[in-house]
């Protein structure tokens, strides 16, 4: 059976195929296709904070209010968990939109310690500006505790099968949590190493929307 279209339907098909979506070029998250259904707002645990919800944010971008969203706190209270986008009938990438809004903040106005930590990582190889000697001392001190007889931390071992990084809290407030992987590696007889410099595994550029910093961070740590 051949499908037949009315003149009106034919007109719509032509219109859809030639639609320019101009506003989606700088903000390619499909925000203009929002049906305003509000499923995202219903799903989001951060809805209501500051009178905001994902639907309102999407509508603001669609209406050209980018600057207004950039100065709001809400895009930093959202965790970009993706529950909204997973349910959106139009597949609007709301977490991507939030991250883009975050990237538009002046770096000195990024809330909390996120940008400061990232700057520290790019300058010193870790978010804490922890000097190399102190860091090595902490690792060796923990490895000298009871239960780790016959174990040493293989720092800067060349040719190892696995290179690990470290979450900065594990050499700061949560040193006990270093031990879990050490026990597993030891039991498995793994050939692994951890670097003495650029050991940071927590790249806050993902959170601040700073793609250039992300690349520089990993380039430092891998090369």
């Amino acid at each position: 059976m051949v499908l037949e279209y009315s003149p009106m339907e034919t007109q719509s098909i032509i219109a859809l195929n030639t639609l320019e979506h101009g506003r989606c070029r700088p903000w390619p998250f499909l925000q203009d296709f929002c049906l305003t259904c509000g499923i995202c707002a219903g799903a989001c645990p951060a809805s209501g904070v500051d009178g905001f919800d994902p639907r309102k944010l999407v509508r603001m971008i669609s209406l050209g209010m980018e600057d207004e969203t950039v100065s709001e706190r809400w895009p930093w209270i959202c965790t970009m968990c993706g529950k909204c986008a997973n349910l959106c009938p139009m597949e609007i990438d709301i977490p991507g939109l939030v991250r883009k809004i975050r990237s538009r903040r002046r770096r000195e106005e990024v809330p909390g310690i996120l940008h400061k930590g990232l700057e520290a990582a790019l300058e010193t190889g870790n978010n804490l500006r922890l000097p190399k000697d102190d860091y090595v001392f902490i690792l060796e001190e923990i490895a000298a505790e009871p239960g780790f007889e016959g174990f040493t931390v293989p720092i800067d071992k060349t040719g190892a099968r696995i290179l690990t990084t470290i979450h900065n809290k594990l050499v700061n407030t949560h040193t006990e949590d270093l031990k879990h992987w050490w026990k597993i590696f030891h039991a498995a007889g793994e050939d692994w190493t951890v670097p003495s410099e650029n050991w940071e595994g927590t790249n806050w550029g993902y959170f601040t929307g700073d793609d250039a910093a992300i690349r520089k961070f990993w380039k430092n740590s891998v090369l």
Partner: protein
Amino acid sequence: MTVFDLLIEYIREGRIHLDTSRFKDRRATYHDPCNYGRQAQRRFGHGFFEEPRWILSQCMDHWQDLYPARMNQICCGGGGGTLNTGYNEERIFYARRKFDQIKTSGADMLVVPCHSCHGQFNAVKKDYGMENLEIKYLWELVADCLVVG
């Protein structure tokens, strides 16, 4: 390679052995971190849902899944850098749905494979009257269950 694949490799190849009786009297549950689950599925076409559950089942015979889980999981509120923005009251408010879920499960141990989730749960559990809920890294559970020698 992910931490899940590495742990699975060690267990499958017999490089580590686990004692499933270590936590037999505990009621454990598992939290899907957004970025290892739903977001990984959305962005890369594979969410790590089954891998951590398989590892958990190698460590204990009985544990209880949360509802809803996997793609419909509820975020803990500690992701996306929110632990370090200073908006702490908002972050506590965010966690209310997650804690409803955990309370309903009756669990006294919550296993997570994410540093952000781990930090958030420990930081806010008291606000929801669950100071006795033990928050455990998935790899900590594996390390605790290791049969050595």
